[in-house]
């Protein structure tokens, strides 16, 4: 997966250790210590960077697991550690003052004030923005901060401020902040009848699809609910983010890196998305038009539907 991304043109690849210290704690993903060392060596040989996500919130009384993960990332010569928890940031900053720290989207730092706090307290060098800001707001924010800004451009779309959502644990007992998973697979069930497929999370019916409908992974914020006398996608449709059309605006705004979600995807997906964004960014660098890249990835979207999310102000 990491190799597929680098070979397709990614400058940096996110990864995590195979435990609950990262927010993609799903079976079959992530690296152990030896694999991380090997992957980092390989990526460095190709001129690519490896960023290690240690971005969940450490469990009270068991923070050593998160500290050991930080030590492992540093020992593997990772190019940066991405963290959200104040305790993890503090440990990394104190124990490894030369390690480069990025602020995870899970910290939901959405203003230059919040970013200034993390930069002054922990020497954070880059912040991944939560998906709640419009493109003009991002431009205004970048004018107010010297810290590098990274923005999501493709993949899953959290409609809540990341790291500040407990819907999943309310329904299932497990959530991104508590356990590194959202809508945990063991809580997902499907009821099939001749007329419809009902998707359930923790037993709650969160969507019902007819024979022709395509189903995405059932997350609460993209479920269908009854409210205000209507049955509808109350929070968001089952769409995914594609901000390819805003790449030029984000670059003009001063965004330093764009991020593609890939860790729960296949190699072919990762390679295609990375290649498309590489080509679009290179086209921008040459001053070429990028519209021809915009529709290239549409078939990869969840349920075939895409949105530019909060980047367009009317989304709110």
């Amino acid at each position, binding site marked *: 997966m990491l190799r597929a991304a680098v070979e397709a043109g990614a400058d940096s690849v996110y990864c995590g250790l195979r435990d609950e210290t990262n927010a993609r704690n799903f079976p079959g993903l992530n690296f152990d210590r030896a694999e991380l060392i090997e992957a980092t060596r390989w990526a460095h040989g190709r001129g690519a960077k490896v960023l290690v996500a240690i971005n969940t919130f*450490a469990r009270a009384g068991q923070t050593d697991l998160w500290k050991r993960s930080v030590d492992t990332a540093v020992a593997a010569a990772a190019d940066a550690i991405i963290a959200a928890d104040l305790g993890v940031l503090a440990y990394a900053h104190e124990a490894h003052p030369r390690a480069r720290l990025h602020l995870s989207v899970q910290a939901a730092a*959405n203003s230059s004030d919040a970013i*200034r706090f993390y930069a002054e*307290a922990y020497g954070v060098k880059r912040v991944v923005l939560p998906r709640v800001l419009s493109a003009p707001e991002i431009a205004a924010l970048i004018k107010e901060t010297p810290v590098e800004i990274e923005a999501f451009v493709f993949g899953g779309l959290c409609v809540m401020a990341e790291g500040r959502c407990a819907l999943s644990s*309310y329904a299932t007992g497990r959530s991104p902040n*508590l356990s590194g998973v959202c809508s945990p697979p063991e809580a997902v069930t499907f009821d099939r009848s001749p007329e419809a497929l009902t998707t359930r999370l923790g037993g709650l019916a969160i969507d019902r699809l007819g024979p022709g409908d395509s189903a995405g992974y059932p997350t609460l914020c993209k479920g269908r609910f009854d*409210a205000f006398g209507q049955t509808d996608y*109350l929070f968001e449709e089952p769409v995914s983010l594609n901000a390819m059309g805003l790449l030029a605006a984000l670059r003009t705004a001063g965004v330093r890196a764009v991020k593609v979600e890939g860790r729960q995807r296949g190699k072919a997906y990762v390679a295609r998305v990375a290649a498309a964004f590489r080509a679009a960014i290179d086209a921008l660098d040459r001053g070429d038009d990028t519209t021809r890249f915009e529709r290239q990835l549409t078939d990869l979207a969840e349920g075939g539907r895409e949105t530019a999310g909060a980047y367009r102000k009317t989304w*709110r």
Partner: protein
Amino acid sequence: MSDMPIELSLGPLLFNWPAAQVEAFYARIAEAAPVDRVYLGEVVCGKRAPLLADALARSAERLGAAGKTVVWSSMSLPTNPRERRAGRTLAALDDLVEINDISALADRTPGAPFVAGPLLNVYNEGAARELMARGCVRLCANVELPLTSIASLARDCPTLELEVFAFGRLPLALSGRCYHARAHGRHRDTCQYVCDQDPDGMAVRTLDGQEFLAVNGVQTLSHGVQIVDLPPAVLREAGVRALRLSPHTCDMAAIAFAFRRFVDGEIEAAELRAAVRETGPPGALVSGYLRGGAGLRAADQ
């Protein structure tokens, strides 16, 4: 520590009530509710704040005169310049304030005392110590935390006062998008303050008709109403110093009175639940989180 009476706090009002109703509500709290502390301020949506400023200022005076500790609370997701200005003004106060977003710390005088609200992500003793080093004197635990984690925090940070969200719909999520406006076919910038139609939040049911969530503008709450009904001795043992009651339209003075009697050992958990149900809370009582389970797990009958 274990002999100290557990305090009661009234959390910030999360819903969009008319200013006159807000003022009448706090007048009644000042007069009749046995709470030690009242958190005041608009924490959900900056668009509502200007409408409330005068009513809240007068309420603060009245509550203070009645012997309540008044603590101003900061916005939970300040985004636009007006919300951020309000946050900076609050942060600049040297009085005790409640901080609900990390941005408020950027402008806080180092060491000036503050309460870390339940919407901050403090899940462990390392994070708590970071905040304490900057002046945090009390933490209202994030609603997801099980009591075992709260006890672990208390053991590691014995001087930190721990408060627990004990009554009300649970604040579960924040967004840049206003779901009230969306349900009404609008968006946030043209919302016409439709959230005022649901003074306890807009009920959200699953496709099977099960009550599940409640929408309050950019905030999503549980439909179920949290009740902390663990024996006071167990709470004290875990280091809990205060219980937070979150305002709803039901009789909050009666609820505070029932909790006061419960933590003083005058009534049992079943009597507490009965007294709370008597006031007509907006949803079924739930109590899963503190026990380490799903938050929506029903409280005992």
